[in-house]
C-alpha cells in the first residue's frame, strides 16, 4: 500500500499532523521509520516531515547545549564544542548511518540500539517536545518512561544538556563483540564531577541492561564522596547490578551481560582502555 508523505515548513504543524493521525510517523533520518516500512509495517500510512531549520540547529553558547532533534551524529562529530559527545556519537553505526541517524531518533531506538540516549541520560538531558501549539521540557528519564508507556504526545524538538565541567568528567563505553563496529552488548555512560578529589553528584546510565536506557542509581550512591581509585570505586562495582534486567538475545545472554558489567564499569571508572 502506498504511503502518503506530508511535508510541513514548521515543526508545530508537523506535530499537529502526527498527533491527529494514528497511522502517521515522523521521519527525520529514516533509520527507524524507513526500516519499519521495509519490514512491511502496515500500521504506517502517513510519513510526516518538516523542513524547519530549527530541527537541525546546534546551540553551544553558554553553559547549556541545545541539540535540535534532527541533528545527525555526523553533525555532532563535526562540532569541536561537542568533543565530549564524540565517543558516544562515533559508535553509532558506520559513516552512512551517522549521516542519517539523528539525536531525536536515537531517543526512540530500542535496545540493543539507543546507546547515544544512555549518554544523554548520564548528562542529565531534558527533552523539549512540541505538541502542536504547545511545548514542554521533560527530564530524559521521565521521557523514556512515557515513551515505553506509549504516552509520548507530539514531536521531539530538541535535547538540552549541561556541558561537563571538565573534559574528562564524562566517560562513555560501548561493549560489542564485532570490531570496530558492532551492536552493543551493553553500554555505560558516566558523568563524574569531582570536587576536592571526591566524586560529587555522579550520574551513571546503562543501555542494553533493561528495556530502556536506565540510571544506575546504586552506582551513583556508592560513588558519592569517594575517589576514583581501586578502593574508592569498590562499593560502586559491588552495586553495579542493582535494578538491571538484561535479556537473552542474539547478541549476548543475560548471564553474559551480568558477568561483564562490573569488568567494564571498573575500567570506565578507572579510565582504563
Amino acid at each position, binding site marked *: 500500500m*502506498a504511503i502518503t508523505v506530508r511535508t510541513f515548513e514548521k515543526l508545530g504543524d508537523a506535530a499537529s499532523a502526527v498527533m491527529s493521525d494514528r497511522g502517521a510517523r515522523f521521519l527525520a533520518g529514516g533509520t527507524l521509520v524507513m*526500516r519499519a516500512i521495509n519490514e512491511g509495517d502496515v500500521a504506517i500510512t502517513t*510519513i510526516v516531515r518538516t523542513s524547519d531549520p530549527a530541527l537541525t540547529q546546534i546551540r553551544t553558547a553558554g553553559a547549556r547545549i541545545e541539540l535540535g532533534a534532527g541533528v545527525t551524529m555526523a553533525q555532532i562529530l563535526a562540532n569541536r564544542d561537542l568533543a565530549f559527545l564524540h565517543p558516544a556519537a562515533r559508535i553509532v553505526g*558506520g*559513516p552512512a*548511518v551517522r549521516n*542519517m541517524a539523528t539525536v531525536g531518533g536515537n531517543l526512540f531506538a530500542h535496545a540493543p540500539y539507543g546507546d547515544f540516549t544512555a549518554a544523554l541520560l548520564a548528562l542529565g538531558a531534558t527533552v523539549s517536545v512540541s505538541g502542536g501549539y504547545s511545548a514542554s521540557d521533560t527530564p530524559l528519564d521521565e521521557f523514556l518512561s512515557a515513551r515505553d508507556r506509549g504516552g509520548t504526545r507530539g514531536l521531539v524538538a530538541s535535547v538540552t544538556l549541561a556541558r561537563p565541567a571538565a573534559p574528562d568528567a564524562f566517560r562513555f563505553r560501548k561493549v560489542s563483540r564485532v570490531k570496530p*563496529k558492532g551492536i552493543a552488548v551493553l553500554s555505560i555512560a558516566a558523568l563524574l564531577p569531582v570536587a576536592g578529589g571526591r566524586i560529587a553528584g555522579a550520574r551513571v546510565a546503562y543501555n542494553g541492561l533493561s528495556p530502556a536506557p536506565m540510571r544506575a542509581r546504586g552506582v551513583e550512591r556508592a560513588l558519592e564522596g569517594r575517589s576514583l581509585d581501586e578502593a574508592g570505586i569498590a562499593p560502586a562495582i559491588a552495586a553495579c547490578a542493582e535494578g538491571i534486567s538484561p535479556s537473552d538475545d542474539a547478541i549476548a545472554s543475560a548471564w553474559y551481560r551480568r558477568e561483564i558489567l562490573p569488568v567494564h564499569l571498573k575500567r570506565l571508572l578507572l579510565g582504563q582502555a
Partner: protein
Amino acid sequence: MSKTAVQFRHNGSDVAVFVDGGANLLMTLREGLGDTAPKYGCGQGTCGVCTVLIDGEPHLSCLTLAETVAGRSVETADGLKNGPDLHPLQDAFMDHFAAQCGFCTPGMLMAAKALLDRNPQPTREEVVEAISGNICRCTGYEPIINAILAAAGTRGARRA
C-alpha cells in the same frame, strides 16, 4: 494513490522519476532508473550494500525516502567509470582481489570513494572506520582495505 515526481542529479545527469509515497531511494534507482549497482541486502541499515553518495556523503539508499533527494546529487557505483576507463578504486579492487561474490562491492566502493574524496591519503585505521558500516562475507576485509590504500597511493601518484 498518486505518484510524486522527483528530480535529482544521478551520476552527473539530471533525471526525473515518479515515485510512490514511501518509496525508498534504492528501489527508485534500481526500478525507476535501471541503476542496479546499489544492492538490496538487509533493508535495515546494517549491511551497507545499498550505500550511495548524496551530495558527496555516504547514505544508505534503502533507508532514504526517495522524495528527500529532490534537487540533490546522487552518485552510485555505476557512475564511477569514465567511459571504458575504470575508477582507480575499481582497478585496485580488481588488482587486489577485493571482490569475491561481489555483492558488497558497490557499497564498499562508494564508502571508499567518500573517504578518499575527503581524505586522499588515509591511514589504515581510517580506511577500516570508513567501511565499518559495510559487511563483506567473503574476503575477510583485508583485500578490500589493501585495495583502498593502494587506490589512495595511485591517486596520490597521479597528482604528483
